[in-house]
């Protein structure tokens, strides 16, 4: 009985992952490459935010990674 429950749980997790994982193919990244998808598209705003975090909270860096998600090169 316990084994059956485990099996169902495993199958449930498998089902969850098999439907949830979707790799966006390189030629389908048009929407991701759009400028509105970039977190840091306003350099001045980013610099101001960074300054506030740095001076008020003594926090610096850790602000995502470079690139807009286009996946080119």
């Amino acid at each position, binding site marked *: 009985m316990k084994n059956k429950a485990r099996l169902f749980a495993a199958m449930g997790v498998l089902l969850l992952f098999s439907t949830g994982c979707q790799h966006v193919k390189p030629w389908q990244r*048009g929407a991701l490459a759009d400028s509105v998808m970039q977190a840091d598209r306003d350099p001045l705003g980013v610099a101001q935010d960074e300054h506030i975090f740095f001076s008020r909270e003594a926090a610096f860096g850790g602000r995502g990674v470079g690139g807009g998600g286009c996946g080119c090169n």
Partner: protein
Amino acid sequence: MHIEHPKRPLAKLLITSLLLMGAAGQSFAEWKVGDALPDLTAFKLEGKLPDCSNKVLMVDFWASWCTPCAQSFPAMDPLQKKYGEQGFQIIAINVDENRTAMEKFLKKSPAAFAVVRDASQQLVEKAGVSTMPGSFIVDRAGKVRFVHSGFNGKKTEKQYEIEIESLLKK
């Protein structure tokens, strides 16, 4: 006889399955060196395909939103002009979902080579391009001889020239 049962068989099955699913999702069956280029007319491409018989081809997959693709266009133009008469043809295959995006791009950067659009994205799927732009240099016999993923400026330009020249000599 004592048979040893594996510990936590379900957990192992689960992890293996997840890893396999991840690997299956990420792998692209990209055209490889030595593969035969399929008949491009079978893919219902929008636009006019040039005469490809007995020519060295460069099949380039690009999109208007892809910055390296925009950088590669000015590099491909001189190649077509320089080697066109020797039997070289560039076929730039656009994979934009939006036709007007392609037209807008071409207005800004006109191309001296053939541009067609793979609206259904069937050909690019078949080519399994791993990085945009993806280009394949094909010899006169229709076999893929060189594969390029992405465009790295002068370095790629130089490689293109070397490869095209080597195939034109044959």
